[in-house]
């Protein structure tokens, strides 16, 4: 079995670029679909696959259909969309900052969102207001970092990175202060938000649409990004409009992150690890990496969220804990297996 997989992998490696990409993307899309079906089927009331398909097509048992369509579907779609958003944003940030340690949160966007969300929770606002405050906080952090790092017109990625890290640290301090001052009854929901939690996701379709839109915007520039990832001077010499491209990537990655954080809180690890996993497995061609990371991120977060709500049911874990628990060993395994 293992040798068959290696042989298939080797065959895939020797295919010309575009065919290999199709092969890999089809496999990842199938994985994503299976994860979504699992998310719809699994739970306290297990629904068989036939029941899931009936529910989706609007037939079958009323109670099963209601559970699948109204409880599980929004949550599964939200998890998939946000996993994809984070992985895509992470891949873009890693190229933008030319730093393998970059993730969607490195520029302070999740910190800003956390300040907004926790402030809204402190005042006991309802869920859509918390979402709105999180989004506003994310945009404020993005504007702050971008404004501060743009000294004298040009911005270097070191300056951008430092500004982002400092703003994130400031937000972290404010978050800690709010946690310390918050009444006990609200602390748990705040902690769940901070660790990332998909249980409250009621309106996932805009996030999914934005994910598709983000990928559509990024894909035409994916070969430009390949060149940019190899250094700015070389990219300019090869005719890549570096300034415009960096601005586009920064704004796009920030918006994708802001939407995801608003939807499921600051789920960690997906945005850092998924692009690296794909890079280790399929190489660093952004034409393949961006869509592959998007699908893999979606699949990972869907699976992690399903595990988070079924593993110790009826209790639920925050999905952010699960992504780290799955991601860390897989990532370390791949790193050790790929000696330089």
């Amino acid at each position, binding site marked *: 079995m293992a040798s068959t997989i290696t042989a298939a992998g080797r065959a895939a490696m020797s295919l*010309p670029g575009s065919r290999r990409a199709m092969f890999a993307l089809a496999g990842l899309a199938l994985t994503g679909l299976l994860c979504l079906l699992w998310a719809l089927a699994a739970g306290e009331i297990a629904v068989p696959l036939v029941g899931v398909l009936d529910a989706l097509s609007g037939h079958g048992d009323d109670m099963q259909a209601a559970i699948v369509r109204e409880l599980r579907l929004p949550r599964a779609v939200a998890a998939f969309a946000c996993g994809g958003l984070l992985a895509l944003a992470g891949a873009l940030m890693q190229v933008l900052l*030319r730093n393998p340690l970059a993730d969607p949160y490195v520029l302070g966007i999740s910190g800003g969102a956390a300040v907004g969300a926790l402030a809204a929770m402190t005042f006991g606002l309802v869920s859509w207001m918390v979402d709105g405050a999180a989004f506003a906080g994310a945009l404020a952090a993005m504007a702050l970092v971008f404004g501060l790092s743009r000294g004298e017109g040009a911005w270097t990625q070191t300056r951008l990175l430092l500004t982002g890290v400092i703003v994130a640290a400031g937000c972290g301090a404010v978050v800690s202060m709010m946690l310390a001052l918050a009444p006990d009854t609200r602390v748990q929901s705040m902690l769940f938000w901070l660790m990332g939690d998909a249980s409250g996701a009621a309106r996932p379709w805009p996030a999914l649409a934005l994910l598709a839109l983000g990928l559509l915007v990024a894909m035409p520039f994916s*070969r430009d990004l*390949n060149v940019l990832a*190899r250094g700015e001077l070389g990219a300019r*010499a090869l*005719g*890549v409009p570096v300034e415009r491209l960096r601005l586009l990537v920064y704004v796009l990655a920030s918006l994708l992150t802001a939407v995801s954080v608003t939807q499921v809180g600051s789920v960690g690890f997906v945005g850092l690890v998924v692009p690296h996993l794909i890079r280790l497995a399929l*190489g*660093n061609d952004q034409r393949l990496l961006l869509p592959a990371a998007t699908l893999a991120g979606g699949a990972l977060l869907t699976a992690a969220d399903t595990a988070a709500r079924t593993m110790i049911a009826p209790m639920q874990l925050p999905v952010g804990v699960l992504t780290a628990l799955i991601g860390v060993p897989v990532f370390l395994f791949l790193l050790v297996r790929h000696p330089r």
Partner: protein
Amino acid sequence: MAVAPPLLEAEDLAIRIGGRWLCCEFSLTLRPGECLALLGPNGAGKTTLLHTLAGLRPPGAGEVRVGGKPYAAWPGGTVACFRGLLAQQQPDHFAASVLDTVLVGRHPHLGRWDWESAEDLRIARAALAAVGLDGFEARDVLTLSGGERQRVAIAALLAQQPQLLLLDEPLNHLDLHYQVAVLELFRREAASGRAVVMVMHDINLAARYADHVILLDGKGGVEAGSAAQILQAPRLSHAFGHPLRAVADGVRTFFIPD
């Protein structure tokens, strides 16, 4: 016989960096088949001048034309099919195969949605063979030695197939054998109708391979002319701030620091 139109022209060009004039106005014309060496001490502005000639920074004064047109007249990115730059350093942030790294040189020739064709692969493999790296296609650039990495960068430039090659210290990290091999290679590129500008440190190799020399003295002074004109012990001693002696062996003249 008609003279071929110039590939690179600089007219009354002057370079300024941070309020300091690095070189005063000079003009140059480079035609197909010609090789130009930029010489000068550290910090004299050789790289800045090369980047200005590459259109990557605006001149302090004057104009640069490639293929008869100023850079601004080349529509978005198309100039990259005409002139190529070998950067002084090759920053590698992510693992990548040698072949993929060379294929990056094909970027300006491909449309937005194109993938590299069999022809692009053939060009990239030929470029690798030209720098003695056949068989290295699958190697990770992060595992290469400095000299091998430099030859990969040269192969990427060859795969770009520009008419005008601008090289920032092309001999960086190369051993003696490959220094000569690479200079012979660029001489052949020039002989096939291209033009080469290279920032160099070795005066004797410049004397052997360059037709024209631009000598910067780091204080704003520029001397431009044929290699025979510029490469004289008094001028070089002045520019480099160190006395040099010319020694002739009957075939060539060598410059040796005193």
